[in-house]
Structures are given as C-alpha cells and as structure tokens.
C-alpha cells in the first residue's frame, strides 16, 4: 500500500517535470545561455517555498505520518566532493540536457534515445562505486 503512495508521488512529479518544461533540453540550454527566467523561476520558487516549509516543520516539530522525525539530517561537511562532483554533474547535465529526474520522465514520454542516457547514468554511478575509495572527498 505504501508503494502505491510512492508511485502516485512519482506520477505527480513526472507530470510536473514534463508540463513545466523542466525536462526539455531546450530549457536547459536556454538556462545556461541566461536566455529566460523560466528555469531560474522554477528552481527559485521551489527553494523559497521549500525554505519556508522546512522552517515551519522544524519550529513546530511536525512529524511524518507514521515516523518519529522528518528526514532532514544535515549533509556531511566538505567541499571537494560537492564542488568536483557538482562540476562533473553540470558537464553531463548540459551535454545530454537531462538530469536524473527528467530522464525517467522523458523515457516515459517515449524518447527512446534517453534510455542511453539512463544506461550511462547507471554506468556512472557504478564507476563511482568502484572508484570511491580512491577519490578525494
């Protein structure tokens, strides 16, 4: 039953990604050309509402439906992994024009080519797992 909830949230997310055009290669390219406010507006408004909501959750100590506390642990400290991992991610994001949420949405929309991006992402995650002990973090 809980899995149906996650499935429903995923469907909702997929529709939002597609209809807001956040899954479009053109919008990603346009963002990196500073050609429109669209993507900045999506990210910015999500974050502003997110910050307000997270503050309310913390101050009122709101709990999840059947758990003890919200999944809001602080991230591990560090700079190297976030900066270099982030840059590699950004290079791929702009090269394929796809990031990890939209790639599934686009596969569902029928873009067969995106399956290659997904396979690549799985290979990339696997390579990271192999190389993790040797990478600076």
């Amino acid at each position: 039953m809980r899995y149906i909830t996650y499935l429903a949230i995923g469907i909702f997310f997929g529709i939002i990604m597609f209809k807001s055009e956040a899954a479009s290669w053109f919008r990603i390219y346009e963002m990196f050309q500073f050609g429109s406010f669209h993507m900045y507006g999506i990210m910015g408004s999500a974050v502003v509402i997110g910050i307000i909501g997270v503050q309310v959750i913390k101050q009122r100590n709101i709990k999840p439906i059947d758990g003890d506390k919200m999944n809001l642990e602080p991230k591990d400290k560090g700079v190297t992994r976030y900066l270099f991992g982030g840059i590699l991610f950004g290079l791929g994001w702009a090269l394929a024009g796809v990031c990890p949420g939209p790639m599934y949405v686009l596969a569902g929309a029928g873009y067969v080519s995106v399956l290659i991006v997904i396979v690549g992402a799985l290979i990339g995650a696997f390579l990271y797992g192999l190389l993790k002990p040797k990478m600076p973090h």
Partner: protein
Amino acid sequence: MNIIYEPWPWYIGGPLIALVMFLLLFAGRKFGMSSNLRTACAAMGAGKVADYFNYDWKSKRWNLMVVLGAIIGGFIASHFMGNSAVAINPKVAQQLAEDYQITSAGESYLPPEIFSVEALGDPFIIAVLLVGGILVGFGARYGGGCTSGHGVSGLSNLQIPSLIAVIGFFIGGLIMVHLLYPLIFA
C-alpha cells in the same frame, strides 16, 4: 489559461516541485532523484565488486517506485496533456540554428537532431548521450545529489554543501555550453 493543455509557467511548476518534496517528507522519506541510481546498481548485484553498493538497498525500494511513477507521469503528460512544443527565447533559438543547425526550437520538446531514433544512426550522437549520462551518474553520486537532492531538498534545508554542489552544477553547465559545445558540436 488552460492548466491541463497549456505549458505550465514557472510559478506553477516551482511550487508544485516544493509540494512533491513535502509529500515525500511527510511520507518519512526525502526528495532526491539520483539515489535511485545507487539503489538500482545495488539491486543488480554491484555490491559484489564495490562496497559502496553493500547496504540495505531493499529499504530504498521506495525510490524505484518513484522512478516508475515518473515514467508513467511522463507518458501521461506527453500523450494526454496537450501540445508539447517548447517555445524558448527566440534569440537563443536563432543562435541554436545558426551555430549548431538545431532548428526545432518551438516545434518539439527535445531536438530531434539529438533525440530522434534516426539520430541514433550516428555514433557521435550515441557517444554524446552516453558520456552525458555517465557524467550525470558519476557526478551525482560523487557530489552526493543532483538538482532535486541538492538543488531543492538541500537548499531548502539551508545546507552549505548543497550550495557548493549547485554552484558546481552551474560551473560545469556553463563550461559545457560556452566552451565545450563549440568544440563538440561544431
């Protein structure tokens, strides 16, 4: 504005993404679309060769359900929710046509020059998609998150590591589009 059939403006899309994050938080989980890559690798047996995949991935099966949902959501939106042509800034569209012969802005959702089945006849296009995917997967796991996990969840929780990662996303993206595209796609 017809909310079903017209493209959604940013002030609809952004708040709804925040809503998805809150729904997952209230379900006791968190919003981040790249942790499923680790879960999928672990489920396929990658734990045999790398410790990174030796963890209780079965407790993370929920994020594979979110993935399945995202696939279904993409199908529903593209098939039943109207025209999916994306109209970007005309100046950017013109520049794409002049510099890279990508002339489909305003007519399609993704450029068929890269994403059509016919384009897969070109090994160069396959390499672009594959290398792009590898960088996304590797970078997301090395950096500990992607546009959703750091860009939305992490920034919403005022996490400095997420701010560093998001700055990294933009450095990488700007390098790719402004410095490497002319070399790769010229």
